[in-house]
């Protein structure tokens, strides 16, 4: 088993304290942390997720969702199990809240698979990749050497020091901004909004490609006021950061009916006032699919389902019509 990073022995007994994320779980011998996959055995903290895969897929990169990063290409997506949040509507609860069937895939085996399938990138997703920290770090270091880029789809709830390491080997992140109220974050997810905001800022300033996703949940985080505040804050970092509004569907412990199209459209309109690129996902709504130039509204990228075609951007990343600089990595 792989020994974990970012923990220390504490006290007299075989207790340890984990420092990977702000939970700073104190883990007694034989127990695991809140995330379920960092376990104390004999006073040593181990990563149960290391080299253990629950999900593997050839995905269109649009599915992550990443719309401004190598659009129209495929990415090898991989997931393990466990998470350091507790959202009751978890859309991947089968691999987050319990130990699913797992297959052994070491970092170099995974990279071999990516090369074999002619994938230019690997996405760490499905469950929360932060809790598979050591595996993500090892694999992304090795894959960079092979010219393969790395993407994380994450809740952003991580401590500064481990984040610094990831910033060196991850090229793009999609961060779930679960909502914009501290009490929502604490009560529903067992997380802290301010930590996620700070990390988003750090990641943006470091120059990684960044896109944000908010799962819109009826009665929980769907007020227009909250969306106004959220998008104003994102714009204060940069109005060019793409925001994906995703419609919720019943899952796990939450059975309210799905987010209505009307609600999605209302929040979309508010977001578009403050941000250049807003998208709607997980629903049949026709708007919020394509990418248009924020300056002249020229169609830049056309999307249907999860397939995408760049139609209006020049090779030097400008709008073909008005020559506006477009925030995209082709």
């Amino acid at each position, binding site marked *: 088993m792989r020994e974990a990073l970012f923990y220390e022995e504490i006290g007299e007994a075989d207790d340890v304290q984990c420092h990977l994320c702000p939970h700073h779980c104190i883990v007694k011998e034989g127990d695991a942390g809140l995330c379920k996959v960092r376990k104390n055995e004999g006073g040593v903290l181990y990563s149960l997720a290391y080299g253990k895969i*629950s*999900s*593997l897929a050839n995905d269109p990169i649009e599915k992550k969702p990443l719309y401004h990063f190598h659009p129209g290409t*495929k990415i090898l997506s991989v997931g393990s199990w466990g998470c350091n949040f507790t959202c009751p509507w978890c859309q991947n609860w*089968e*691999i987050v809240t319990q130990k699913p*069937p797992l*297959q052994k895939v070491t970092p170099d085996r995974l990279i071999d698979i990516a090369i074999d*399938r002619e994938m230019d990138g690997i996405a760490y997703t*499905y469950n929360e990749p932060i809790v598979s920290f050591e595996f993500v770090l090892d694999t992304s270091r090795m894959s960079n050497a092979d010219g393969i880029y790395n993407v994380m789809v994450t809740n952003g709830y991580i401590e500064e020091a481990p984040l610094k390491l990831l910033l060196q080997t991850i090229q793009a992140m999609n961060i779930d901004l679960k909502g914009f109220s501290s009490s929502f974050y604490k009560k529903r997810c067992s997380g802290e909004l301010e930590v996620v905001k700070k990390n988003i800022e750090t990641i943006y300033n470091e120059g990684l490609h960044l896109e944000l996703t908010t799962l819109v949940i009826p009665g929980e985080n769907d007020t227009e006021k909250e969306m106004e505040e959220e998008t104003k804050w994102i714009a204060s970092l940069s109005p060019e950061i793409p925001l994906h509004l995703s419609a919720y569907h019943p899952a796990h412990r939450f059975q309210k009916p799905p987010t209505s199209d009307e609600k999605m459209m209302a929040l979309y309109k508010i977001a578009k006032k403050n941000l250049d690129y807003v998208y709607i996902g997980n629903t049949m709504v026709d708007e919020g699919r394509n990418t248009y130039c924020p300056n002249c509204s020229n169609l830049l990228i056309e999307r249907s389902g999860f397939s995408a075609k760049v139609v209006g951007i020049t090779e030097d990343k400008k709008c073909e019509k008005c020559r506006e600089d477009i925030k995209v990595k082709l």
Partner: protein
Amino acid sequence: MTLKRNTWLLILMASIVFSFLFFLLLTNNRVEYIGKVDIALGTRVKVVVSADHPERVINAILREFHRIEDKFTVNEKKNDKSVISRINQSDTYPVVIDEETAFVIERSLGLAQGTNGAFDPALGNLIKLWGFDRISDADFEPDVPTQEEIDRAVRLSGYEHVSVEGNKITLENGVALDLGGIVKGYAIDRGVEIGREMDTDATGYIDAGGDIGIIGPKFGGDFWSVAVRDPEGEPDDYVEKVFLEKGAVVTSGDYERTFEIDGKRYHHILNPKTGRPVRKTKSSTVIAPNAMDADVLSTAGFVLGGEFASIMLPPLGGQGYFIGEDGKVKTTAGWHFFTERR
């Protein structure tokens, strides 16, 4: 004394009449399932329906099966109505196709991509070489092709040489389509759709050679209990039972379309890379929201083997149960959800 006998006889009469009426009452309220068995798409098709006019629904479903068989199956000796034959035999590309054909082929290509080629709709030359396209014919003669013939057919195969743009399809590299791995699932979905369109309260199922699509829950609210056949046992032995009220379940096995030569068994699920029957799996069962996906994913699962199938199928919408050649069972993370009445 007489009075006692009177009363006794009266009670006896009343109870007989009462039980008779009670029995009639029970029979009238009982939901009746009507079933019919036919042959289509090279297999036995059983349609079981409870509806206002069950015979009409069943016959419409079976007619749809025959229409799809005529349109989508490749059997050069029998079939000139086949759109697939027309595409395969065309001298020039692109070929114009109708909406339905485009839909089925595009879905095939998407799933071929997603399963990394484990399911491949362009193995026509390989399948024809082995004869699995004619395996249900009365004059089928089983034969094992040479390594050279297999290598050549493998070179002339591959979904990467098929492209669909709108209503036009192009085949390159001399490849040929064979939609056998998706067409049964599509027919089941169409059958379920037709059944529901004809009677919104219709319940029942379609069983096409062990590939199942649910029309509606049992008695309008209960689960259908579906046994997963034991590949090694008697025809009615099962290894697992799942409970479904909607959706589909499809199994691919090494015991279905097979022939034996010199003591070796050859079945119809080929490894697209080697051109030979896959040996590492005995059976692959997949539950999915529709039969088309379940059909494709069960074939893909068989070719991938339980280990890869258990991690690759859930992101594509399938939950599966796989038995390896060593008898080892692998399942996907959400499979156990279906093995209990929930």
